[in-house]
């Protein structure tokens, strides 16, 4: 099939599919008039039941906690899969990380980027910790805060060199953070079982709504997810950088 025919076959099928999909979606309640019972029930009871003022976090880490654990393990599996795919192949070897490829040297980092990157590093890390820690109170949580934390590593790379990143970012610690995050979620779930309740039962004292220590196990799960996401994204960043900067095909000695 030539690319032209292929395109036409797709366009005909896609037109039919789009019409059916739009027809199906137009049967939903009109935009802006939410009618479902679940959101209303949760909005009414979550603050009283779980003492978490962020109902989205209460859904993610408590009412829907087992689903979120599954999602976290998809993330874990994807990061591990990437790390395995990008490891050194049989015919490759690690070389000194040099920033220049033969005949294509990158321009040196400007002082403006260097200074701004380093100046932003502290605030970014602090903001990431804030977003993780206040996940059950205000918008944020482990997923968002973890990504913010991981951008700290990106800033180090932008304002320095790959070698600097390797120095400030111990690989073992990153691996440990990722595994501890994934395992921590399961351990918190199992603690519920050990205490005689259900898996992921919210067994800690709930406290007062709006307090930093409240909502039972939610801040702990947020912390676990934050570690997992931050570790995972930093690991992805290092793997891809390593791929372009360190790994070279083994040259056959002539």
């Amino acid at each position, binding site marked *: 099939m030539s690319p032209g025919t292929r395109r036409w076959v797709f366009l005909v099928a896609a037109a039919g599919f*789009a019409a059916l999909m739009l027809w199906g979606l137009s049967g939903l309640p009109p*935009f802006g008039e939410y009618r479902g019972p679940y959101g209303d029930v949760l909005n009414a009871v979550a603050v009283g039941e779980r003492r978490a003022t962020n109902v989205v976090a209460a859904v993610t880490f408590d009412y829907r906690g087992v689903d979120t654990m599954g999602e976290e393990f998809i*993330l874990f599996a994807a990061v591990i899969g990437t790390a395995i795919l990008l490891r050194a192949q049989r015919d490759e070897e690690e070389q000194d990380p040099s920033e220049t490829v033969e005949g294509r040297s990158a321009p040196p980092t400007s002082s403006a980027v260097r200074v701004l990157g380093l100046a932003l590093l502290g605030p970014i890390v602090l903001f990431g910790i804030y977003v993780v820690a206040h996940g059950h109170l205000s918008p944020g949580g482990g997923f968002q805060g973890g990504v913010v934390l991981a951008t700290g590593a990106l800033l180090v790379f932008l304002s320095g060199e790959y070698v600097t990143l390797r120095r400030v970012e111990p690989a073992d610690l990153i691996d440990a953070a990722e595994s501890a995050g994934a395992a921590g979620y399961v351990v918190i779930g199992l603690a519920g079982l050990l205490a005689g309740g259900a898996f992921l039962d919210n067994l800690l004292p709930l406290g007062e709504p709006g307090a930093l220590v409240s909502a039972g196990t939610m801040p702990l799960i947020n912390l676990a997810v934050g570690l997992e996401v931050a570790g995972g994204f930093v690991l992805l960043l290092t793997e891809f950088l390593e791929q372009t900067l360190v790994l070279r095909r083994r040259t056959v000695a002539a």
Partner: protein
Amino acid sequence: MSLLPYAVTVWLFVIGLYGIATSRNLIHMVTCLSVVQSSTYVLLLSVGFRRNATAPIFLDVPVGTRAVDPVVSALALTDVVVGATVAALLLALAVQVHKRLVTLDPGGAPGPAGLTCVSCPRSRSPSPCSSLPPWWAAARSSGGGQPTRSRSPPQPP
């Protein structure tokens, strides 16, 4: 007007599929998959949206304030982050494909002349790496050097 968010959902889904079906580059294909994925966020959030309502966060507004559905927000927020790592996994596959086959074209067309393989910067020819499986090299040479998109996948011996 109330159909607009659903029309946007359908448009994003179909235009992403169009990109995947006609893609000539694996990185472009991964991006198109992200476009398809983003259509689900538009759908989820528009299903849970409510006019003149606030976010479902009752830190400085009393419980009982009109708020949007928290369930769909929770679904979308985990998927944004998980989707990014899955895209990274697909891009890692693209890196390995480029190393082995020196092309990113899913149809097998060779890359532009002079393009170098990331892992063998000294070779300036677009010829495949020496560690290619033999069935791939045979399938390439049988095409007479012309990019063919209709070739059936070669069977490994």
